[in-house]
């Protein structure tokens, strides 16, 4: 089993006719993802890589039976695209890859999300992959391998790095979820951890966090109180100077003691989560847990 996506997931790609949408649709198809439709206003009736395009997401759901969406729509229109996906009847999952969506737009999306049962992953994320079954997003499929470890991470490329370390020593993954580094995201650490906890095929979880915000501290408390599945952790940004913003919107250290790598590592360790100093060491910790 896996979480969020599997070989039966029927994907609609929003923005399929754009450069990124087209390229990654081809990549997803090549990986074996069941891409059944595209959705682009005004482009209904066209085909991209053999995939039929519809004018609306609702049309793609109705005609092609899509149950998950991946959003490759430029930032100015991306929030509207996510709203459209959340509004369509029948989508269980929406993965928003777009980077640079205005924060206030995301605040309104988040408000809408509270009224629906749909899972939103992202925005500004690499996507979700169940190795050997399906990938929704931009993750490089060849790094991943099927197995029994769940992965959740705020940073895309760091996900690839940590997974590569796991794969290199034969530790496969059930599902990897890149939740994104923006200040407001859909699925967060706690949501992803709950999905893995409920999945009988996931024997251990790797959680990759970074400086800024308090999501990792909250996740640590959740692990301590609610999880039987063992978790290993990694926190990026130990050397970050206070007051400077390091790329991700969340990756700033206030200097007041919260949101630092040290406070996050301490919170994880206090809740029984071993934390590796390097991605290589994270793989060591996972090996110990299995």
């Amino acid at each position, binding site marked *: 089993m896996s979480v969020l996506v599997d070989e039966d997931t029927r994907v609609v790609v929003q923005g399929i006719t754009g450069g*990124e949408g087209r390229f*990654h649709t081809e990549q997803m198809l090549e990986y074996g993802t069941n891409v059944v439709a595209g959705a682009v206003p005004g482009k209904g009736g066209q085909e991209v890589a053999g995939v039929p395009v519809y004018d609306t997401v609702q049309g793609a759901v109705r005609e092609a039976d899509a149950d998950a969406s991946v959003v490759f729509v430029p*930032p*100015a229109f991306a929030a509207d695209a996510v709203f459209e996906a959340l509004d369509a009847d029948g989508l269980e999952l929406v993965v928003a890859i777009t*980077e*640079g*969506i*205005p*924060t*206030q*737009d*995301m*605040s*309104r999306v*988040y*408000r*809408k999300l509270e009224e629906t049962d749909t899972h939103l992953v992202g925005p500004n994320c*690499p996507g979700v992959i169940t190795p050997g079954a399906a990938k929704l997003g*931009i*993750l*490089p499929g060849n*790094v991943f391998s099927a197995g029994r470890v769940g992965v959740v991470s*705020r*940073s*895309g*490329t*760091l*996900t*690839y*790095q940590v997974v*590569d370390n796991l794969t290199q020593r034969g530790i496969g993954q059930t599902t990897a979820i890149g939740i994104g*580094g923006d*200040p*407001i995201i859909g699925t967060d650490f706690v949501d992803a951890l709950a999905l893995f906890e409920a999945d009988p095929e996931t024997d251990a979880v790797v959680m*990759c966090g*970074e*400086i800024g*915000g308090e*999501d990792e501290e*909250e996740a640590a408390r959740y692990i301590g109180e609610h999880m039987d599945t063992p978790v290993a952790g*990694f926190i*990026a*940004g*130990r*050397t*970050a*100077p206070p007051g*400077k*913003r*390091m*790329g*991700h919107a969340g*990756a700033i250290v*206030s200097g*007041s003691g919260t949101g630092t*790598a040290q406070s996050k590592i301490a919170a994880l360790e206090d809740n029984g989560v071993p934390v590796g*100093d*390097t*991605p*290589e060491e994270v793989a060591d910790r996972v090996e110990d847990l299995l």
Partner: protein
Amino acid sequence: MRLHEYQAKEVFADAGIPTPDSQLAGTVEEAVEAAASIGYPVAVKAQVHVGGRGKAGGIELADSESELRDAADAILGMDLKGYRVERVLVEAAVDFVDELYVGVTMDRGRGRPVAMVSTRGGVDIEEVAAEDPDAIAREHVDPAFGMHPFQARKAVYEAGVDRDVAGDVASILRTLYQLWDERDGSDAEINPLMITSAERDAADSASDEREVIAADAVFNVDEDALFRQPELAEMEDEAGTGDELERKADEYGFDYVRLDGDVGIIGNGAGLVMTTLDLVDYYGGDPANFLDVGGGAKAQRIANALDMVFSDDNVESVVFNIFGGITRGDEVATGINQALEQFDEIPKPVVVRLAGTNAEEGMAILNEELVTVEDTLEEAVKRAVEYATTEAEA
């Protein structure tokens, strides 16, 4: 993007928030002229993007022209926490009895805007928040509806603002929220919002009402929303910001932070770049910078990144850590070759680690006479630290 105080005050004043008379001055003479038309006493305030300007000597009061000359002369050209002061705001000094804090920001944990009011204004509000969180009244706003009038009143009464001015403060808070909402603010703050003394106003304007006036103004704009805020985008004013390298990084559009060490670091994705910094430190080196080329970087962008890092005189070696997802290894390799082939001699040793999308294609293209290639992150970082140590000794 941060607006300077004088710009934020223009925006606030246009929206109807009362602000003191003020003028921008770049020289002592301009400051004298400004003060003459405003009338003494005045405050002279450095226009640089740093907090705590008052404590650092960036704000002075002047009662007379000679005091003003001294103050303007001291502040103009001074180094304020690493930022050179090029302009001052000369502003009517407000005779106040109380100082409030009002602000609007995004509560990322709850995914909602939050409006805040405190009677502990005029000081570092982060300290108040840390030591006595109850001293700040908070009201979360549903972004679908905006701030209801009752929410502004509730925050103001719960903060314990004087009844005389509560209505005015509530109205300012709502205006501030609307500005924040319509102009894509990330933070909008007035600290202090001054309450004037009734007596003075009674003499000046035949009124015994107290008034509130924004003595400082902060407005930071969400960079991602600048495309729909053309007026604010035009206000981008780099005077008194960052060092030369950070300005250059802005031009190139990189996320870049300069640090004290000697190992230059270039990577893709904030988390991976931070991890590379941490590993440099772990293996006994000192990171010279954080540089994230972002997702999907093409060859020219990679070449620009190398140019940036070579421009830092402290750099003794450079490590490239690219794990391609949306970024392609062949583009990265082409960019590295382009940047290095223009040198007769490479300024500092460059170590490259390429993995992920099109990594093999990239490795095939990469000119191995110009760089050191390593297969793993750990090996690449160790090698770069080693080079930095050797170069520093040489």
